[in-house]
């Protein structure tokens, strides 16, 4: 008997709900800065759990075990965090509204193009991951490259600017109005400014 006991006696693992907004177990949402949003999410996604956590009895019970002083501090903390989160959100949406993603078709030589995508970082896109995705999606070379101004952009081999536009709008939720497609034709040689070597003094 004893040798068969362990496996069947094992308790099944607990299944745990994690908050769809802040990723914590919902009982800890109150310590994040997005409590209001978390509560809204929970009410929709897990109504029973919502009632258990946010009913007025549950809330007062939670607080009663704190001293009055600690309650005040906790309230102040929560307010501060909420204000911070709100400000961050406002900044974020401002940034989204005013930033642009630029998709540039660059001619390397006759019939060979590369596509440079800049500005995705303003839309919370991880450039490295995005570059990988572009490479996979368009079956081509794709990498993060440094720009002359010190920033980073994604360079994709081939002319995929239309496809990139669709993908950026669909996958990264960048509003179409915030994406600009431009073309960079290879300049004629004579257009290049003359290089002047520094003169020895």
């Amino acid at each position: 008997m004893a040798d068969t006991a362990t496996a069947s006696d094992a308790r099944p693992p607990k299944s745990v709900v994690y908050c769809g907004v802040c990723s914590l177990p919902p009982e800890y949402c109150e310590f994040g800065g997005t409590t209001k949003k978390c509560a809204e999410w929970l009410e929709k996604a897990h109504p029973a759990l919502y009632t258990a956590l946010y009913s007025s009895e549950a809330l007062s019970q939670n607080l009663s075990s704190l001293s009055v002083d600690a309650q005040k501090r906790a309230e102040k903390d929560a307010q501060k965090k909420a204000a911070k989160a709100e400000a961050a959100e406002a900044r974020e949406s401002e940034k989204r509204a005013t930033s642009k993603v630029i998709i540039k078709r660059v001619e390397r030589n006759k019939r060979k193009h590369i596509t440079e995508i800049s500005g995705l970082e303003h839309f919370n896109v991880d450039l490295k991951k995005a570059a990988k995705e572009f490479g996979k999606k368009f079956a081509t070379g794709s990498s993060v490259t440094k720009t002359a101004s010190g920033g980073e952009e994604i360079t994709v081999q081939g002319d995929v600017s239309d496809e990139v536009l669709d993908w950026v709008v669909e996958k990264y939720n960048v509003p179409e109005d915030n994406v600009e497609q431009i073309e960079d034709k290879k300049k004629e040689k004579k257009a290049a400014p003359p290089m002047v070597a520094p003169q020895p003094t």
Partner: protein
Amino acid sequence: MFKKEFTAGQKSKVKSSAQRAVRAKVIETYPGLEPYIDDVLPKKEQLDLVKVPDRVSLYCNGSTPLFWQHMDDAIIPHLTVVHKYPWAFKRIRIDRGAIRFVMSGATLMVPGLTSPGGRLPGDEDAGVYDNGGQDIDAGEVVVVEAEGKEHACLIGVLKMGTKEMKEKKKGVGIENGHYVGDGLWKLDLS
């Protein structure tokens, strides 16, 4: 340990011999996990090793983080593993007031454990935190749950044994642990 957010470094496959060693180490450190070891660390699945800052190795299965280890210190489960099998670990409890400190990355101080809302092995009303009445020594890994909460909020190495805590009622309990909402928790492995 993971107060700051970070991104994952290089990912590499763990060789099957090393994978066996990890498994053995986990069972040795957490005997309570043994009945579940095939679910936690499936034999047939590839274990990956991800380098994260401050010389921490993170073992994961695909995009699921499982265990982490700072240099050659104890191997410690990710809190999502703890949440599934809380009874498999040595547990203590902090009072409600200490939660916000833990979740802001502060060192866990002993008064959060010895106050009326806290629980340590041997306490009169220790319940699931009794550990069979056995005190837990400094250097052991403990899971920290919280008053009024169902799930653990912190896991880390005890700086002070629980016996000493009950005597002194002050000092550092745990520092450099892993808590819900920290950089490791938020790490995106996808």
